[in-house]
């Protein structure tokens, strides 16, 4: 129950996803509750990135699991999505009733390009990081080519990426060829 309350609190004030979560988690879980040590935090965080899914939710579930097993995992998951879920629901219902309002339309016409610009900025920053290694540069460019020019679905590319990673490992480390 405490796990649920703690993660619900974090979920309520978390804006902008995974990376914004770390300081909040530190304050609540490490300082207030004393559930884990600061050094362990980075372990949870690294692991959350390897598991499929959202980093913020994964980190919460890993901590929940460490504390109380399967039930802890469940409590942490429900906690972290609880408040955002109801906020969004309220917003979506209000949106349905007010969608003809001129002010709301204007607001959305500003929000849409802002989201697109934000995504482009994130993409630019990520590309700057990826192109530091030759492998990163090649993979990023090939992915853009396949997805944008040829139109390969993202699903296929992701599965292909995992397969390529495993193949790369076999070729490089086991020297089977």
């Amino acid at each position, binding site marked *: 129950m405490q796990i649920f309350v703690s993660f619900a609190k974090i979920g309520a004030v978390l804006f902008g996803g995974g990376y914004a979560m770390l300081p909040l988690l530190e304050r609540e879980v490490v300082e207030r509750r004393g559930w884990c040590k600061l050094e362990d935090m980075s372990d949870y965080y690294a692991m959350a990135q390897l598991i499929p899914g*959202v980093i913020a939710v994964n980190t919460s579930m890993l901590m929940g699991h460490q504390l109380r097993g399967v039930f802890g995992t469940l409590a942490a998951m429900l906690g972290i999505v609880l408040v955002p*879920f109801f906020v969004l629901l309220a917003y979506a219902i209000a949106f349905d009733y007010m969608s003809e309002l001129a002010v709301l339309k204007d607001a959305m016409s500003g*929000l849409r390009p*802002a989201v697109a610009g934000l995504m482009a900025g994130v993409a630019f920053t990520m590309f700057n990081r990826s192109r530091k290694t030759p492998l990163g540069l090649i993979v*990023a460019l090939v992915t853009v080519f396949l997805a944008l020019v040829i139109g390969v679905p993202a*699903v296929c590319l992701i599965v292909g990426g995992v397969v390529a990673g495993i193949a790369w490992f076999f070729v490089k480390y086991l020297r089977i060829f």
Partner: protein
Amino acid sequence: MGTLLKIISVFFKIGILTVGGGLAMIPVIQQEMERLGWLNSQQFLDILGVAQITPGAISVNTATFSGYTVMADAYPGQLWMACLGALAGTISVCMPSFFCVNIASQVWSRYREHDCMLSIFNIMRPLVTGLIITASAFLVVSSVCGDSEARNYLSSIDCFSVGVVICAFLLTVYTRMKPFYLLGLGIIAGIGYGLL
């Protein structure tokens, strides 16, 4: 009911396929929604924007809101069905990680530094970058030109949108402004432009 089951299976799939965090999920959600004809790119931009200015993880919020919108379109006037859609989207996108966490906690300490893991991630990180670049290209085109049926892009370019896209891009790259404030500015700009 068919739509609800479809939502559950689609978001479950999206949940499995997302490696390396929520950002990687955005291109997949976008493509799946358009492939199924559930959301057009304007609707997706709205959802993505709202998902970032409400609390919570972006991609879970996107799943919640998408589930709601899809069910609201499929069953007009039935509010509880839409809410059920939101619930289905939220839970099913988290489910794969729920199973993985329970399994992974057992084996994690043994394999975390394993070279196989590292080489998968060496490929997945730039691959996700490429996907984000592609998704953002689509989103920029869609926000600037609208979803014009005629696909006559050049004539439908909206100068105000172009300006906002460029400002948002520059602010993100050079000032690291928090998305929440950035999108807030976008909303204010939109209302201000509407008043003029």
